[in-house]
C-alpha cells in the first residue's frame, strides 16, 4: 500500500440539476484519470437529482454498484476512495430532515443511515467514510464536555458499524463546523476510540478557519487516516464563519469582503496551505492512505483538476 491520489467530484454539482447524466459523470471521470488520479471521492446526497449521492441512487442510475464500478474501471480508475457525508443533511429517502450527533436519541438512526455507504464503499474499493465532525459552529455554540462525549459516542458506534465492512469512519472538520477549532478537535479526538475513528485533515477548510493545517497534522498524526487537499488565500479573521447562516452569507456569498472564491488549487499563488509540509509529516509517520484533491469554488472543474494534477506530480511527488 502506498499513498494514492483521488479526486473529489463535489465541484461538478453546484446545484440539484447539475451533473445528473452519466455522460457528464464520464467526462469528469476521464478528466480525473487523465490528470493522474486513481479514484474518486463521492459526496453524500439525496433525491433523484443526485445520482451519485447514495448507493441506492447509483443503483437506480447505473443498474447496480458493480456496473458503476465497471464504468470506473473502464475509465482506468481503481474505484471510489471515499464517501463524504454529513449526518445533519436531510435524507428524503428516509423522511429525515437531518440528524444531529449531539442528540443521543438519533445515534442509532445515524448508524443505520451510514451502513449502506460503508457497504457500498467496500464494494467500490473504498476505505473511508468521511463524516462531518460537528454541525456548524453558529448552531452549536459552546462545545462543552458533555457535547463532546455525546458526539464521540455516536462516532464510536459509527466507527464500529463501518468497520464491519472494512471501512474507517474518519472525522472531517470543515470551516463552518464547530470542530474547526484546535481545542474542540483535540477533545473530540481524545474522546473517541482511535481503533474506530480517525481524522480527515482538509487543508483548505482548516486554514480558512484559522488553523495551521500542518500543525494539526503534527499534533494528531497518529489519528490522521485521510487527507483532503485544497488551498486558500484567506483566513476568516473576522469570525464570519461563526455568524448565523454562515453557509450562505460567508461561504457562498463571500462574506464582508465579498470574496469571489475561498478555495483554490493546491499551490495557488499566495496560497496559505503548506501542502509539502503536510505530506512530509504524514510520510514521516508512514501514512499510506488516500490524498484527495478538491476543486471547490473553481470556475472550471476540469482546469482545476489538471492544475492539481500538475502540482501533485511536480511538487508533491504523488
Amino acid at each position, binding site marked *: 500500500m502506498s499513498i494514492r491520489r483521488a479526486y473529489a467530484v463535489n465541484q461538478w454539482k453546484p446545484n440539484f440539476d447539475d451533473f445528473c447524466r452519466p455522460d457528464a459523470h464520464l*467526462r469528469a471521470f*476521464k*478528466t480525473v*484519470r*487523465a*490528470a*493522474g488520479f486513481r479514484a474518486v471521492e463521492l459526496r453524500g446526497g439525496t433525491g433523484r437529482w443526485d445520482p451519485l449521492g447514495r448507493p441506492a441512487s447509483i443503483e437506480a442510475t447505473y443498474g447496480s454498484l458493480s456496473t458503476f464500478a465497471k464504468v470506473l474501471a473502464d*475509465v*482506468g480508475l481503481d474505484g471510489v476512495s471515499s464517501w463524504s457525508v454529513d449526518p445533519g443533511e436531510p435524507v428524503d429517502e428516509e423522511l429525515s430532515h437531518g440528524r444531529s450527533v449531539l442528540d443521543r436519541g438519533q445515534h442509532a438512526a445515524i448508524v443505520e443511515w451510514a451502513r449502506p455507504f460503508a457497504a457500498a464503499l467496500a464494494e467500490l474499493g473504498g476505505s473511508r467514510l468521511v463524516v462531518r465532525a460537528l454541525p456548524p459552529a453558529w448552531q452549536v455554540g459552546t462545545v462543552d464536555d458533555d457535547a463532546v462525549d455525546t458526539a464521540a459516542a455516536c462516532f464510536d458506534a459509527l466507527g464500529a458499524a463501518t468497520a464491519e465492512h472494512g471501512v474507517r469512519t474518519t472525522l472531517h472538520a470543515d470551516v463552518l463546523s464547530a470542530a474547526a477549532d484546535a481545542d474542540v478537535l483535540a477533545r473530540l479526538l481524545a474522546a473517541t476510540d482511535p481503533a474506530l475513528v480517525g481524522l480527515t485533515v482538509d487543508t483548505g477548510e482548516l486554514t480558512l478557519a484559522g488553523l495551521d493545517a500542518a500543525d494539526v497534522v503534527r499534533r494528531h498524526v497518529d489519528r490522521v487516516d485521510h487527507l483532503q487537499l485544497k488551498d486558500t488565500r484567506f483566513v476568516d479573521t473576522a469570525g464570519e464563519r461563526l455568524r448565523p447562516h454562515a453557509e450562505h452569507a460567508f461561504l457562498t456569498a463571500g462574506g464582508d469582503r465579498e470574496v469571489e472564491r475561498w478555495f483554490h488549487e493546491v499551490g495557488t*499563488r499566495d496560497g496559505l496551505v503548506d501542502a509539502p509540509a503536510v505530506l512530509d509529516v504524514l510520510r514521516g509517520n508512514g501514512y499510506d492512505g488516500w490524498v484527495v484533491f478538491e476543486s471547490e469554488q473553481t*470556475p*472550471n472543474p*476540469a*482546469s482545476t*483538476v*489538471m*492544475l*492539481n*494534477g*500538475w*502540482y501533485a*506530480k*511536480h511538487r508533491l511527488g504523488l
Partner: protein
Amino acid sequence: MTYRWAYMDHWRVDTPRGPQTQYANRRLMDDFVKQISAVGFEGLDMFDFQVFGLSGMFGSIAKYQEYLQDHGIAKIVNLFRGIMYDPRVADAHVRETHDEIVESTRRMLGMWSDLQIENLIVMPASLWTTTAPVTDDKIKAAAECWTRVGEMSLTEFGVRTTGHHEFFCAIRTFDDIVRFYDLTDPRYVSFFCDTAQHCIAGVDPVELYERLHDRVSGFHFKDTVQQDTTSAYQHRPDAELMAPQTDRWFHEMGVEGGLVDFQRLVRAMDAHGYDGWVTVEHDKANIGGDYAESTALSMWYAQQVLGKVAS
C-alpha cells in the same frame, strides 16, 4: 508505441477580463503549461507569430523554452506558419512569389533558431476558392516552392518543412495530395497528417497515411463528426469558421460519432514503425465546450484507448 505527445496550441480561457489566451499574462501561461503537462504532454506546437509575444513575456524564445522545461514540457516541437497567401506577394502556385516565400520563411526561422524545432508546418497552397481551378501546373508550382523552402529550412536551420492540408486548401483531394508529394523532393518536403481535416474533405486519413507513410513527419490528432457535404470548402471568405454547414468542425479524440478511426491509424503507424511526436489538436473547442476539458478528454483517449491498441 514509442511516440511522444505534443499539444498544438489554440488554447483560450474565460477570465474576469473576458476570453483570453495564455499570451496575455504569466498567470494564464503558468496555468496553461501546468494543465497540459499534467495530462501527459511532453511537447508544445504553436504558431510562428507567437515569438513576438513570448519574447516580450520571457525575454527571448529560448528563455520561454527553459521555462517550459522547468514545468515538465521538454520542448517546442513544431511551428505552424501563419502565412498570409496573396498572389501579388506570396502564393505557392505563383512562381513569381517564391523568392518572397523563401526569404520570409528564412527570416521567420531565424527568430526561432535558438531552439530545436523539428517541423515547419505549412498549408502548401492557398485556399481552394482563390486558387481554383486547381491544375497540374499549379500543383507543380507549389511543389517547386516548398522544395526550395524545404531545402533552405533543413540545410540552414535543421528544420523539416511539412505540408498540412486543410479541407479548404487548394490541394485537398487524395489524388492531388499524392501528386503534390510526388512532385516534391522527399529530402526536403514531408507530410503532416491532420486526421480531421482529411476526414472533412472526404479523404480517409489512414489510407492517406498508408500511401505516404514514408513522407510523414507528424500528425494532428483531432476528430470530426461530419464530412463536408455542402461544398463548404468553397465558402467565402472562410470555410473553417463561417461555413453554413456547422459552426464547429473539430472535436477531441473519443467524441461520440467521431469519424476518424484512430485505433486503425495507430495500428498502421505501429506497422510502419512510426516513432516521432504525435500532436493533439482540438481547435475551436470553446464552441460548446472548453479547452481544459477537451484537452483532458483527448489525453484520456490517448492513454487509455490508444495506449492499449498500440504495441
